[in-house]
C-alpha cells in the first residue's frame, strides 16, 4: 500500500470504475456528541470520503445553510481542538476512510500552524482544504502541511484560467476540488455540460483525481457529476438534513438519521451512475 488514504481510495474507486461520494458535514453540528455519531455513520451510508468542516464565525465562501451549521456547532461549544478530537474518535473504528478537514485559516493560525499539523496528522487527518489560502500564500500552511505528510487539496474555480492553473496545481495532492460555480456553497448548480468542459481542462493540467462540488444537492445531480468527475462533493444538503431534524434548535436523532438516509440515497445514485 502506498500513498495516503486519499490516494488509495481513488485507486480503489478507479478499480471499481465508479466515482466516489465525498460527504461534507460540520464538526460539532448539531452538537459534539451527535456530530461524532454522524461522522462515524457516513462510511456505512456510502460516503467514500469524509470532509469535516472546521466551524468558523465568518465563513465568507459559504451560503446560509453552512453558515447556520457552523453557528450551531460553535454555540454547542465546538473548537478546533474538538474537531481534531472528533477525527481521533472516528479513527478508532475506521482506518480506511479518508478524512479531509475543510475551512478557514484563522482558527488554525490561532491554534499554531506547527501544533495543528502535528495534532492533525496524529489524529489521522489525511488532507486539508483551506478556502482563504490561495496559492499566493503557499508558504503559510500549504508547504508545511505537505512536508508533514498531509494532502493539500486545492480549489480550482471557473475563474482559474489556464495561465494560473499551473501555479494553483503546483503543490496540490490527493485530489483537485473543482468549484463548479462562481458563488457560495448551497446555491445553484452549473450545467453538466459546463462542468464537463471544465473538468476536461483540469485534466489537461493534472493527473490528480478531480472532485466537483458546490450546488449539488440530490442524487440526480450527483449522478450527473459522477459520470464526469472522479468524485462528487455534497455538503449543504447534509447540513440542511441536520437542520431539518432540530427540535427547538437542539439536535435530535432525526438530525443524524436524516443526513445518513440522504447519504445512502445519493450514494446509491452515484454508484449506479456509470453502470
Amino acid at each position, binding site marked *: 500500500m502506498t500513498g495516503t488514504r486519499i490516494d488509495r481510495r481513488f485507486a480503489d474507486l478507479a478499480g471499481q470504475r465508479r466515482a466516489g461520494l465525498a460527504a461534507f458535514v460540520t464538526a460539532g453540528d448539531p452538537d459534539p456528541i451527535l456530530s461524532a455519531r454522524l461522522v462515524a455513520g457516513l462510511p456505512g451510508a456510502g460516503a467514500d470520503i469524509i470532509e469535516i468542516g472546521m466551524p468558523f464565525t465568518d465563513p465568507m465562501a459559504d451560503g446560509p445553510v453552512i453558515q447556520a451549521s457552523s453557528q450551531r456547532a460553535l454555540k454547542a461549544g465546538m473548537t478546533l481542538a474538538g474537531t481534531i478530537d472528533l477525527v481521533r474518535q472516528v479513527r478508532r473504528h475506521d482506518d480506511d476512510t479518508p478524512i479531509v478537514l475543510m475551512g478557514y485559516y484563522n482558527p488554525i*493560525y490561532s491554534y499554531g500552524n506547527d501544533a495543528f499539523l502535528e495534532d492533525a496528522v496524529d489524529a489521522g487527518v489525511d488532507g486539508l482544504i483551506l*478556502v482563504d*489560502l490561495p496559492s499566493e500564500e503557499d508558504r503559510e500552511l500549504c508547504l508545511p502541511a505537505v512536508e508533514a505528510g498531509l494532502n493539500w487539496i486545492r480549489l480550482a474555480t471557473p475563474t482559474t484560467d489556464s495561465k494560473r492553473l499551473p501555479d494553483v496545481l503546483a503543490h496540490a495532492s490527493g485530489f483537485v476540488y473543482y468549484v463548479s460555480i462562481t458563488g457560495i456553497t448551497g446555491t445553484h448548480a452549473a450545467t453538466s455540460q459546463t462542468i464537463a468542459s471544465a473538468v476536461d481542462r483540469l485534466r489537461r493540467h493534472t493527473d490528480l483525481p478531480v472532485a466537483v462540488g458546490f450546488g449539488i444537492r440530490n442524487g440526480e445531480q450527483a449522478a450527473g457529476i459522477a459520470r464526469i468527475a472522479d468524485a462528487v462533493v455534497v455538503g449543504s444538503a447534509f447540513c440542511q438534513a441536520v437542520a431539518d431534524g432540530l427540535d427547538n434548535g437542539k439536535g435530535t436523532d432525526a438530525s443524524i438519521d436524516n443526513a445518513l438516509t440522504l447519504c445512502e440515497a445519493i450514494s446509491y445514485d452515484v454508484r449506479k451512475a456509470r453502470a
Partner: protein
Amino acid sequence: MTDNSYAQGPDQDGHFGMFGGRYVAETLMPLILDLNRTWQEARDDPEFWDAFHGLGRDYVGRPSPLYFAERLTRHLGGARIYFKRDELNHTGSHKINNTVGQILLAQRMGKTRIIAETGAGQHGVATATVCARFNLPCVVYMGTKDIERQAPNVFRMKLLGAEVRHVTSGSRSLKDALNEALRDWVTNVDSTFYIIGTVAGPHPYPELVREFQAIIGREAKEQLMAVEGRLPDTVVACIGGGSNAMGLFHPFLDDRTVDIIGVEAAGRGIESGEHAASITGGRPGVLHGNRTYLLQDDDGQIVEAHSISAGLDYPGIGPEHAWLADQGRVSYVSATDDEALEAFHLCSRLEGIIPALEPAHALAHVMKIAPALPDDHIICMNMCGRGDKDVFTVARTQGVDL
C-alpha cells in the same frame, strides 16, 4: 521595505512586515490580480490623477480647510489644536476621497456594477453618491444593527438610487456586512467592482485606499506650513479600519519629530471586553483577506466588537496600522463611549461643530493630552466626519426620543 522609511510599503505581495497579504478564495484571486494591475498602471498615469483631483476640487470640495480651534484650545489650556475639516467634504466625511478613486478604477476595468459594505453608513453614502454620478448600479450591504442606529444614512443611500441589503447574519454589523459583500463579489465576479471602504482587505486595497486618503495628510502638512511655518508636533485620528487615520498619518510617517497617535474605540472599557480596540485588545489573525490585529477568542473565532460609533465597530484594523504599531512608529490608544460623548458635546458647544462619534474619539484623546502640553505645541486632529447622522444615537443616551 527600506530601513530608513516607514512610507514605502507594502511589498509587491501586499505585505507590511508580517501583516497584509491576500487571503481570499481562489474565485476572487484572478480578479484581485487584475485589480492590482489596473491600479499599478493608474497610479503612474497622470490622466488618472487629473481626473481624481478634478473631482476632488469640483465635486468633493477639496482642499478641506485647516481650522484653528481657538475656543477649545483656550478651554483645555495647553496645546494649540487644529482640525483638518474633512467633515466639510461632500457627503460629510472623508469616505468620498476613496470612493471617487475606486470608481475611476472600476471604470478603467470596465465593471458595470458596484458593491460596498458600510457600518456607520458614511462609506455607503459616499459609494452611492459616486455611483449616481457615474451611472452605475450600486448595492450596499449593511448590518441590521447599524441600519437601526444610522437610519438617516440608510435613507440617503436610497435617495441616491442605491439598494441597501439588510445583513442579518452573525453580529449584524460591519464585519458581517463585509462577509455578505464578499459573498456577492464571489458570485458576481465578472461584472462587479467591490469598493472597500477602509485600508483593509486583500492587497492592493490597503495600499490604494491609503493613496486616495493621503490627500488629507498632504493638504494638512501644506496648510500647517502656511499658517504655522512648521510641522505639527502631534497628529491624531480615530481608528476603526483606519482609513482617515492612514490618510492623515502617511505623509507624516517619515517626519520623525511628529508624534502620531491613533485612537481606537474602547466601548464600555477595554477591561469590560465590550470594545472595538483591535490593537489594544486583540492579537494577530487572518480575516477579510489580510493578516492583522483581530478581536478573537482562544479558538480563533472572531469576537463581536462594541462601540457607540457604528463606524468604529469592527473587530479588525488595517494591516499597515498593525505594522506601524509593531514598529512603534504610531502610538495606538483608546477612548471609551463616555469619553467620546463628552468630547462630542464639548466640541458642539465650544466650536459650533457637531462631530461624528468617530472623530469624537480622537477628540477625547486630544482632551486628555492637550492640557499638559505647552502652548507652542501644535496638535492636528482629523475631523473626519460630521455628526448629523449621530443625533439619534446621542439623543437616546439622554433619554430623548427624536
